């Protein structure tokens, strides 16, 4: 079934003056309940229920280790899915100058920031009972906090520039540079002395977890990935609709 699409054309300019670069047409997405978002939130809730009631308590760390099942998937989705998506969309935008890629990069950056916020909130709560401190300025924690500020800066930069093409170009460059921190964050536990533990899953050898914990972690990975996709889709729809309003306002001036 083909959906009809509503588009607003860019403002018409007199033939005597050179026409500005026309923004790509934006279709108005469908409204109603966002079922994917509901499923994503329910999946994360199910992962948390599984972690709380159907996963054994770790003998050395106690129940606080269950923070692992929300902290690690949030970090993996933000650092290895969200921010690379920002970089890819930004890089391809610089090549093709397609506004849809700019909106994809913006949306992925904002959703990734939420996931990184979850990482930075849960990390200290896990660190306090295990390390005896809420925070330590070691390489991994500091670099992750620094990346969080860079992504905040990316979004602030976007809000500070009115010209559409200039905003897209500047933020694409920043989006590409931000992702360069990700490999340093991943390798920081090998390169520096740090309290943060080594990877137990994303490493060359097999995961060093009992099967029950591995299954819960894999379930959580799937749930958080689904939530990321759902939030990204909702954010992208919002960006498209906001663009329609901006085009309509420009046409009305």
């Amino acid at each position, binding site marked *: 079934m083909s959906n009809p699409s509503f588009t607003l054309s860019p403002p018409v300019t007199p033939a005597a003056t050179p026409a500005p670069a026309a923004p790509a047409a934006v279709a108005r997405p*469908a*409204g109603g309940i966002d079922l994917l978002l509901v499923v994503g939130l329910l999946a*994360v*809730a199910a992962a948390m229920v599984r972690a*709380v009631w159907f996963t054994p308590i770790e003998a050395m*760390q106690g129940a606080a280790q269950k*923070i692992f099942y*929300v902290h690690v998937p949030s970090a993996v989705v933000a650092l290895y899915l969200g921010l690379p998506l920002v970089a890819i969309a930004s890089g391809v935008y610089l090549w093709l100058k397609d506004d849809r890629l700019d909106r994809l990069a913006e949306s992925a950056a904002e959703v990734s920031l939420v996931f990184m916020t979850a990482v930075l909130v849960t990390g200290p709560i896990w660190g306090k009972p295990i390390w005896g401190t809420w925070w330590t300025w070691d390489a991994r924690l500091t670099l992750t906090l620094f990346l969080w500020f860079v992504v905040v800066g990316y979004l602030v930069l976007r809000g500070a520039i009115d010209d559409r093409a200039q905003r897209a170009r500047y933020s694409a460059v920043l989006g590409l540079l931000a992702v360069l921190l990700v490999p340093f964050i991943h390798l920081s536990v090998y390169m520096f002395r740090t309290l943060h533990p080594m990877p137990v899953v994303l490493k060359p050898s097999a995961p060093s977890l009992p099967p029950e914990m591995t299954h819960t972690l894999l379930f959580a990975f799937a749930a958080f990935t689904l939530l990321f996709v759902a939030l990204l889709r909702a954010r992208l729809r919002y960006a498209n609709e906001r663009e329609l309003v901006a085009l309509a306002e420009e046409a009305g001036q």
Partner: protein
Amino acid sequence: MNGGPPDNAAYFHAAYVLIAFVYGGYAAVLLRRRARVRQVLDRLGAPDLGAPSR
């Protein structure tokens, strides 16, 4: 010390509540922002592709 795991469940309870607040709060903010921009589009006369057909 009795040799069992330490009793620190309050930390993970707090973390899970905060996680629900972060993700649920962002989803709510996103839906509210979208509803607001859709109201503007409705005023502009853009057809809602999600509205039930008659």
